């Protein structure tokens, strides 16, 4: 039955209210098998609420959620056999040893004997915990604890892994390891990760879902989102020569280019110019060809920079705030259109 199910996670029009506060409103998304999806949103956007609903910890007011085609609300026990969940802040019993804890959790997840021992060895090795196996969790650093949480989530080889901020509080080395670890799950397990560390999400995830104030405000691969929210690209140029007339020269390359900033260094006649323009390779070529033919300007260096996920995140959430401010009664989250591309400069600041 499970093979015929296309989606590992399917969420349809999910709404959850805490008293008068609406945590999530009409959220819909889905995850294909083996897909890794980043779940982004500012604090209080409803990420943890959505994840808790997916694990069956809390129930939604309306809408439906399915894990491997099984409805969460009516079959909570069944879906718990299919998920590995790492909660926010990753609570762990401080009085247990790492190995004991994993054994206990494995037994609760209905693993037995040799299989359990083998899996414990495997996850200890994978998460670089083998040396800490006999140490008491209470005495371990944050990095160790996060890795224990991840080891526990993947212990029973669940079909779906839900991680609420798995990389929070880790140092760059550990983040790198966790990133490789999560990437290694690609294709085998479906993973949904909420995080604030956006470069991590961009590198590991196939797709990104951005929610804000309970609505899905953007969903797609990072490049799709870039096209939708910030199709412009920034060009950083270092040009020697007087800054006079520079503007006209740039406009003559392409009228779509505009100067975002121009820093001149007195005495050296060097300008550091940042341009906004459409994201295509030809513009770069045109700029180089144009400036190489000019006697009074010399192009010393140039590089282009596409919008980062951080810029997209800021643009998507900002746009949803603007729309909400204009229409406070808006209740449904319709996909946003490319009607109003926003300049990179405003978002990056």
């Amino acid at each position, binding site marked *: 039955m499970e093979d015929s199910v296309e989606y590992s996670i399917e969420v349809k029009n999910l709404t959850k209210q805490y008293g008068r506060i609406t945590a999530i409103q009409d959220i819909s998304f889905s995850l294909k098998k083996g897909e890794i999806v980043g779940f982004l949103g500012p604090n209080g956007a409803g990420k943890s609420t959505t994840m808790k609903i997916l694990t069956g910890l*809390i129930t939604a007011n309306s809408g439906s959620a399915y894990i491997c085609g099984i409805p969460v609300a009516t079959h909570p026990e069944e879906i718990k056999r299919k998920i590995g969940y790492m909660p926010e802040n990753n609570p762990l019993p401080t009085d247990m040893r790492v190995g004991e804890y994993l054994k206990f959790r494995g*037994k*609760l997840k209905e693993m037995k004997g040799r299989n359990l021992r083998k899996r414990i060895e495997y996850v200890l090795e994978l998460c670089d915990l083998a040396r800490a196996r006999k140490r008491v969790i209470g005495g371990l650093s944050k990095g160790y604890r996060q890795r224990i949480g991840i080891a526990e989530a993947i212990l029973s080889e669940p079909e779906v892994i839900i991680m609420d901020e798995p990389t929070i509080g880790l140092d760059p080395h550990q983040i790198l390891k966790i990133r490789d670890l999560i990437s290694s799950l690609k294709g085998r397990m479906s993973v949904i990760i909420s995080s604030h560390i956006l470069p991590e999400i961009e590198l590991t995830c196939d797709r990104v879902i951005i929610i804000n104030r309970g609505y899905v405000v953007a969903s797609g691969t990072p490049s799709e989102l870039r096209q939708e929210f910030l199709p412009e690209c920034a060009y950083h140029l270092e040009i020697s020569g007087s800054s006079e007339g520079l503007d006209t020269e740039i406009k003559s390359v392409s009228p779509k280019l505009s100067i975002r900033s121009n820093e001149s260094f007195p005495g050296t006649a060097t300008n550091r110019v940042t341009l906004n323009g459409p994201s295509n390779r030809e513009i770069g070529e045109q700029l180089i060809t144009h400036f190489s033919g000019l006697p009074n300007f010399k192009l010393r260096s140039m590089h282009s920079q596409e919008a980062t996920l951080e810029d997209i995140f800021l643009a998507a959430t900002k746009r949803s705030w603007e729309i909400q401010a204009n229409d406070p009664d808006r209740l449904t989250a319709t996909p946003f259109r490319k009607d109003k591309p926003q300049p990179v400069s405003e978002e990056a600041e």
Partner: protein
Amino acid sequence: MKHFFTLLKHELRRILLSPTTYLASFFFLLVMGLIYQLILEDYNRAPQEMLPSNIFLNMFFIPVVFLVPLLTMRSIAEERRMGLMDSLLTTPINSIELVAGKFVAAYLLYVGLYLLTLAYPAITYYYFPDERVLDKASLIGGYSFICGSGLLFISIGILASALSRSQLVAGIFSFSMLFGLIVGTNALANQADLFLNDYDAVKVIIDYSHVLEHVKDFSRGVIDTRPIIFYLSGTMLMLSLAVLAVDHKR
């Protein structure tokens, strides 16, 4: 109940490895030993109407109102405060298994501690080999009362712990409920004796739940089934409420 034994083993391991268990046991046995010694001193001064083990068991409620909250207040409240409850409930266990595991572990510790107090009459018997020190009827009756009533007392503590996130609130709540159940019913029974006739429904209910009367009967060696039904049904009620509380307060 697939996961019950895993959870029970985990709880027992936790109890046995925790230094606080040994500290609590030490002070419990110290206080109980002191009470037993005071009883023996009374015998030294003047002849008494009741057997020493009889009087000793009648005093059981003094440690109960302190011991039970201390044993149980941590169980669910602490897990919830630390967020461990959420991560436990995302595994294929259900709240019945969870509550049952916590309850049985705390109950076994409770019964274990009381069974250790059997050492007092045993030590006394070693030095004063008198039949009356180790009166079988009173000891069997009394300790079966401890085991039976312990079910209800511990389940009250577990319910209190399930209702609150704070150990302190859980402790005070279970202390108040136990105090009400043991001392309150005694006060009510005394009042009922004065104002109500024996067949009045209110008096029947008060007598039915009069814990101090039950212990008197049992420690005399009279094993009555009515209190047993009372403790068992009360335990089921408290544990069901605790399961509902765990399910509801996520």
